[in-house]
């Protein structure tokens, strides 16, 4: 479990996170939503250690980030997989080399063992025969899948995804969503997804955290988000006519 307690972060005197507290459970797809500038990305970067919080505690299965040495931090990070918004694949390396990279750095395995693992995770994300291609030769959806494959190749305990669906067509976005959910359940990973995509939120958001101006405004599941009366959540999630009508229909049906 990841426990976040009273997380504060500011940049040049401007507070971005103002005391966010929450927990993330194993095998659950957690989603962070909110408007641009609400602090989602900063929150995610604090979780993975790319930003150091000004105060507050992040506890990874009993390990408080403030009490870890640099070496322990690095070891903890080896248990983290991250899917970046733009994929962040190493463009001078092939798909195979990209996925093999964490193994080369941290696993004491022979080349054939590493190759087997690479092929296994590539198959897991429904990609085959792309081993020798460079990231630039792949479509956006394929790059995201390679990025997921790289994130899970070390069997991480924690998976973080920053806008995994941005720039993807609806079909590919659904494929990526389902893939993340399947992997989360299959490997019992703690998954935290930062998203703007309301389809994803409704589809796979087992726990949703709504951030507004650096504060946790609301927390609940994708079922609860339909019936919430929280004005800020309703205005954000149901800002489109389509979603508003879907919500009205759902509420009518459940009454």
């Amino acid at each position, binding site marked *: 479990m990841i426990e976040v307690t009273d997380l504060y972060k500011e940049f040049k005197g401007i507070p971005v996170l103002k005391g966010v507290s929450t927990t993330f459970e194993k095998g659950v797809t957690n989603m962070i939503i909110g408007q641009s500038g609400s602090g989602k990305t900063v929150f995610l970067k604090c979780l*993975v*250690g*790319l930003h150091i919080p000004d105060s507050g505690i992040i506890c990874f299965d009993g390990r408080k980030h403030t009490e870890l040495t640099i070496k322990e*931090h*690095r*070891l*903890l*990070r*080896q248990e*983290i997989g*991250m899917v*970046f*918004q*733009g994929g*962040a*694949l*190493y*463009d001078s390396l092939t798909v195979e080399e990209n996925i093999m*990279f*964490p193994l*080369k*750095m*941290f696993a004491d395995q022979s080349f054939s063992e590493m190759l087997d693992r690479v092929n296994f995770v590539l198959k897991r994300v429904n990609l085959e025969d792309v081993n020798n291609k460079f990231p630039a030769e792949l479509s956006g959806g394929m790059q995201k899948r390679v990025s997921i494959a790289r994130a899970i190749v070390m069997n991480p305990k924690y998976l*973080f995804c920053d806008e995994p669906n941005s720039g993807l067509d609806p079909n590919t976005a659904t494929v990526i969503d389902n893939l993340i959910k399947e992997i989360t359940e299959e490997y019992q990973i703690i998954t935290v997804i930062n998203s703007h995509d309301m389809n994803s939120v409704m589809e796979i958001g087992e726990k949703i955290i709504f951030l507004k101006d650096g504060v946790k405004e609301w927390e609940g599941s994708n079922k609860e988000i339909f019936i919430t009366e929280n004005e800020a959540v309703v205005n954000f999630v149901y800002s489109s006519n389509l979603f508003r009508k879907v919500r009205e229909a759902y509420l009518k049906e459940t009454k």
Partner: protein
Amino acid sequence: MNYLRHVGKYFIMLRQVFRKPQKWSVFREMLFREIEDLGLKSLGIITFISFFVGGVVAIQTALNVDSPFIPKYLIGFATKRSMILEFAPTFMSVILAGKVGSYISSSIGTMRVTEQIDALEVMGINSLNYLVLPKIIATVFFYPLLISLAMFLGIFGGYVAGTLTGLFFSEDYLYGIRLDFDPYYIQYALIKTVVFAFVIATIPAYHGYYVKGGSLEVGRASTQAVVWTSVVIILLNYFLTQMLLA
């Protein structure tokens, strides 16, 4: 104040760079790649420039010492001295600062803006150590070879220029380049080269690593890296010359 902040940040960066590599096999692989990218791929331009610079120095010297009281062997002597003391180590380093410096800065800068460096950090990799240390080792060990070659080719270029133009006799030139040969000058040039190589690897790496923004900022960082590397090389050249020769 801003300059001081950058200087401080640069030295803090170096502290992170000089750590034990996390995996020696990966480090070795990176090192060979950097030797190829930063060293072997610079061979062509260094060969070309040093040969012609040597030729021009010899011709200029010959044209400016037409007095019958000045012996012709001084052309070879002056070409040798200027190539060994200045043109090979300093001039070539400024050329390398432009070629290699912009490459280092833009490649690391692009990795920064496309979150590839964040990806390394999230994996638990010391990105500075992984990206910059092989570059430093590659330049510090390979550039003395490159500059030694530049010295030789510059002197040879002077010989070829002289014999082709007929401005001086080859015997005079060969006598001039053997005259008053002091091995300490080679040592001095190589010490300078090692220092400049370190500067060429680290200043552009600093500019690339801490870039913020997009492709435009990467371009700006690359330009700044070349400017600052050249400035630092020229300043260090002055201080090293005073320390080692004066």
